[in-house]
């Protein structure tokens, strides 16, 4: 145990002695861990946003009001067979009127207009798609020649509207962001590993006399290596602390500014529930990067 504390003390002393190199290594590690965390937060928020938007969207296919139940069931079956359907709901003309009145209960003028027009609303099938990126499958079913006579010619299906374009844009943006986040994280992971590798290499070089003396007086291999590993893991620990603070500031502070565009509520509640787990994950990641880099440097430059 006493040996363990001596190794930690020596590692801390080395860290302080090389303050500039230590600061540089810690800074790069901080950028890496923050990037990984931001990438994780953004992915989570964007996924929640897409899910939220797509969950709200139904494809509405308007039908003529004089169809028989067999015709309606046949149409529903052909949609289900497309494979991209979670649920289907048939809305009768009467139900459509009730829904309309419920939605516009605070607007008596609209309700009065509907009453004057009689049962003017068409029946419809509300489709919830499994994959909103592939609404074309549903579109193909709707456009089949056999189904054309069933559709209300005055009200085209709603998937061709502006909402689909918006969803497509969000999906594309999220995909790009995910790839960019992963690429940047991977790049900084490599950079920080290389910088810590180089820092430890220089530390080994500047302390070669000390290492020789340690060998001379009978230090074990791990007593000599230990301080270098601890020094590198210290970069990771300090970087993890800063990165966690930065990420939380970004999430809890910055998120409110874009909250109307992106759904951060899931991510914020995830962070609140698992904050300890997240901190531990950051620490573990930082320690692993530091330890692996220093072990690599030692295997190459510290021959015992």
């Amino acid at each position, binding site marked *: 145990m*006493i040996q363990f504390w001596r190794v930690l003390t020596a590692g801390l002393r080395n860290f302080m*002695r090389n303050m500039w190199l230590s600061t540089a290594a810690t800074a790069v590690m901080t950028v890496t861990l923050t990037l990984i965390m931001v990438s994780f937060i953004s992915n989570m928020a964007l996924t929640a946003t897409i899910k939220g938007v797509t969950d709200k969207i139904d494809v509405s296919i308007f039908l003529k009001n004089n169809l028989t139940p067999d015709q309606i069931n046949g149409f529903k079956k052909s949609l289900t067979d497309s494979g991209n359907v979670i649920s289907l709901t048939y809305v009768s003309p009467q139900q459509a009127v009730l829904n309309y009145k419920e939605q516009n209960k605070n607007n008596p003028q609209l309700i009065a207009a509907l009453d004057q027009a009689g049962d003017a609303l068409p029946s419809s099938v509300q489709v919830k798609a499994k994959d909103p990126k592939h609404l074309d499958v549903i579109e193909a079913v709707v456009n089949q020649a056999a189904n054309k006579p069933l559709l209300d010619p005055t009200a085209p299906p709603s998937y061709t509207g502006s909402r689909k374009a918006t969803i497509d844009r969000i999906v594309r943006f999220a995909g790009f962001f995910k790839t960019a986040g992963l690429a940047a994280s991977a790049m900084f992971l490599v950079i920080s590993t290389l910088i810590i590798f180089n820092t430890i290499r220089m530390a080994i070089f500047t302390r070669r006399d000390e290492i020789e003396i340690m060998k001379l*007086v*009978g230090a074990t291999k791990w007593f000599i290596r230990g301080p270098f590993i601890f020094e590198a893991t210290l970069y990771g620990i300090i970087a993890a602390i800063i990165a966690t603070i930065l990420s939380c500031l970004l999430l809890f502070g910055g998120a409110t500014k874009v909250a109307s565009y992106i759904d951060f509520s899931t991510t914020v509640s995830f962070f609140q529930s698992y904050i300890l787990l997240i901190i531990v994950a950051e620490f573990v990641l930082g320690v692993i990067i530091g330890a692996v880099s220093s072990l690599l440097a030692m295997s190459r430059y510290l021959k015992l």
Partner: protein
Amino acid sequence: MILFDRVTKVYPNQMVALSGLNLHIKPKEFVTIVGASGAGKSTLIKLLTREETHSSGKIIVGGLDYDTITSRDVPLVRRRIGVVFQDFKLLPGRRVGENVAFALEVSGARSREIKRAVPKMLKLVGLSTKENAYPHELSGGERQRVAIARALIRQPKILIADEPTGNLDPKNAWEIIELLLKINRFGTTVLLTTHNKEIVNALKRRVITINRGRIVKDEEQGRYTLEGGK
């Protein structure tokens, strides 16, 4: 105590540093090893401290057969042998007391034990007042005393002094030799290598002369000679 039985050391570049060397040093002896540069003195010391491994033959030190030790055992071997060098090999950023304590720290000694042992050892080498000084504040002779204190703090049975007076003026050199003799009187086997003819001749102790990796002369009260013992 130290036994070399037909020990040969061939380096990877095929240079033969020791060739069938036989040597027996008894406990509590004071032995001086002399020889020209490249004769094999340094290799002999490196084999004793296990910085190098022998190519053939047998080395037994303090009952430990070097053929049986693994790389894990090497630190333990080194803790049984104290070594001092011409260039002192002190840690410049640490005080005298910390330099001496360092040898105990690496072997896992308790802090209380270290605090007790260091002043005693500094008193033995005559540096009681310098415990808080840094190496650069000391004279060459004083630095070598610190190195000796560090080598002895674990009470090894063997002390190897590799050219300990090489960087010192005659007065300081003699003080170091007198310190080594004192340590030897306390029961430590001392192995000294030196090029200082006056010291070797004045010591009147066992002198082993090495030339081209072989012992060419081994006298109980020897004198400094080189090149085949002439």
